[in-house]
């Protein structure tokens, strides 16, 4: 097949920690391969607990770290071959991150619009004040906000849900084809979580955006993703279509993980830790 958007080919990441005498090797990611097709936008979930290597994988895909083994190819181009600011900028325009903590994503001392404007100017090629503002407004409208609501505001003036929307809008402003969302809803209040999750689905369907959704939360992964991989201690233990895998996990670890999910009770069901 041709036309992979993102392809990970046997990627491993090993850190060495410690000083000269007591070096320890930490294998954060071991032999992970997957590919996202350019023609078929999807939400691809990487599920794992802390220490599963899922965040390291996110950093590798964002080219913030080079893997110690294997190759990451974006639109057929090996990230290790990326040279110079121009290529790096082109890559950043196409692959954008959404981070975990909406209260930390923006500098608390700076206005929010600044980041939107910078992204529009540097990546979307918007020139002049009006063009930049129009581009920022377009991005914000895609997440259900508008520039009028955000212009001149500081991060502490908005709720976590709104901030996460602004963060997503900022990522969209560069016109990316891939979003890397690392635990984007885990710090967002439950009542606002559903709307963020729905937003991802809308971006996939309407903008044709592929999203790598990294989470420990099986329930939200089930509700939005097309395909998932489940990671344990750096290895992929199970992968496949989200509904199939999560409805009927095969690997013992996946089963344990699913059993540990505490879901609200169906009427009449017995709580796990009843009196």
């Amino acid at each position: 097949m041709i036309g992979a958007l993102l392809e990970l080919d046997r990627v491993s990441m090993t850190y060495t920690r410690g000083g000269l005498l007591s070096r320890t090797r930490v294998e954060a990611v071991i032999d992970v391969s997957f590919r996202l097709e350019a023609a078929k936008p999807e939400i691809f979930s990487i599920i794992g607990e802390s220490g599963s290597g899922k965040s390291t994988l996110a950093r590798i895909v964002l080219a913030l770290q080079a893997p110690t083994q294997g190759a990451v190819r974006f639109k057929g181009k090996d990230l290790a071959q990326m040279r110079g600011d121009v290529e790096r900028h082109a890559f950043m325009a196409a692959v954008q991150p959404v981070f975990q903590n909406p209260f930390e994503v923006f500098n608390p001392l700076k206005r929010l619009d600044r980041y939107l404007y910078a992204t529009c100017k540097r990546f979307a090629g918007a020139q002049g004040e009006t063009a930049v503002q129009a581009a920022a407004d377009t991005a914000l409208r895609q997440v259900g906000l508008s520039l009028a609501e955000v212009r001149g505001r500081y991060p502490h003036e908005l709720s976590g849900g709104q901030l996460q929307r602004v963060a997503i809008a900022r990522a969209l402003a560069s016109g990316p084809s891939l979003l890397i969302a690392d635990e984007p809803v885990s710090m967002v209040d439950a009542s606002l979580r559903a709307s963020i999750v729905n937003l991802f689905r809308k971006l996939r369907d309407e903008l044709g955006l592929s999203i790598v959704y990294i989470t420990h939360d099986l329930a939200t992964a089930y509700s939005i993703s097309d395909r998932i991989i489940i990671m344990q201690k750096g290895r992929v233990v199970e992968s496949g279509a989200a509904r199939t895998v999560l409805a009927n996990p095969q690997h013992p670890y996946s089963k344990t993980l699913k059993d540990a999910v505490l879901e609200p009770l169906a009427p009449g069901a017995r709580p796990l830790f009843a009196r």
Partner: protein
Amino acid sequence: MFVVLRDLLRYNGEFLAGILLTGIVVVMALLSFFSPYPPMDQFVAPMDVPPSAAHWFGTTSRGQDLFWLLTYSIRNTLAFGLLVAILSRILSLSIGLLAGYRGGWVDRVLMSINDTFIVIPLFPILVLFYFVMRDNMSWVMLAVLTASLGWSYDARLIRSVALSLRHREFTQTAVFSGMRTHEILSKEHLPFVLPIVFSTSLNNMNWSIGLEVTLAVLGFTDINRPSVGGMIYWANQHSAVVAGIWWWIAFPVGLVVMLFIGLYLLAVSMNEYIDPRSRLERGGGRKE
């Protein structure tokens, strides 16, 4: 900014005292522009007159009016302190922020240079420079030298803040918004260290003025340019204390001590403003 100033004045006694003391010294320095005597002219006033209505601070054995001479001296001394503070802030900010943000080998190289400067004994070096340069040693040169020896502690402090800023998510956001390194340093990280820069620059001024006064008293600076230390140097040359001309020593010393205390109080109250915990205890939230 005005609100902050107003509130500091209203609620913080140290700040008020600091402003008053420093203010008096600054006014003194500004008065030099209205001096009836050129600074270096000698024997324009009667010699050795004690403080009186005609000569408020008395006159020197060299026939200078002490009050007006002091206005020039304190102006020069202040200018020296300011110049050193500004130059050394530029150094410590750019080195500290860059080392903290880039990390890795950049950090290691910059910090090993930094640590070298921390351990260099600066007083002997300044004296050595004076002996090498002699008459070519202008006050600007001395300021540049002092600044290049006085940035290292604060650079380390700034680096430690920048180091923690580097790992915060908004730095990544800035990177992925296409901002360049210098933009991230100057727009994103600088505001976080500015409060530290303010309070350390006041301390730095104190430090450099102290150094200059010491060098001048010992005669290791340009003695023909009026400065507080230089005045004391000349007073010693004329055995002012033995001769009972106490005012020649007392007024310069008094004024420079006032400046020290004023700057110190400002630095302390700035520090308190920067640290919100101590601010809370003072400003609001009384206990039941």
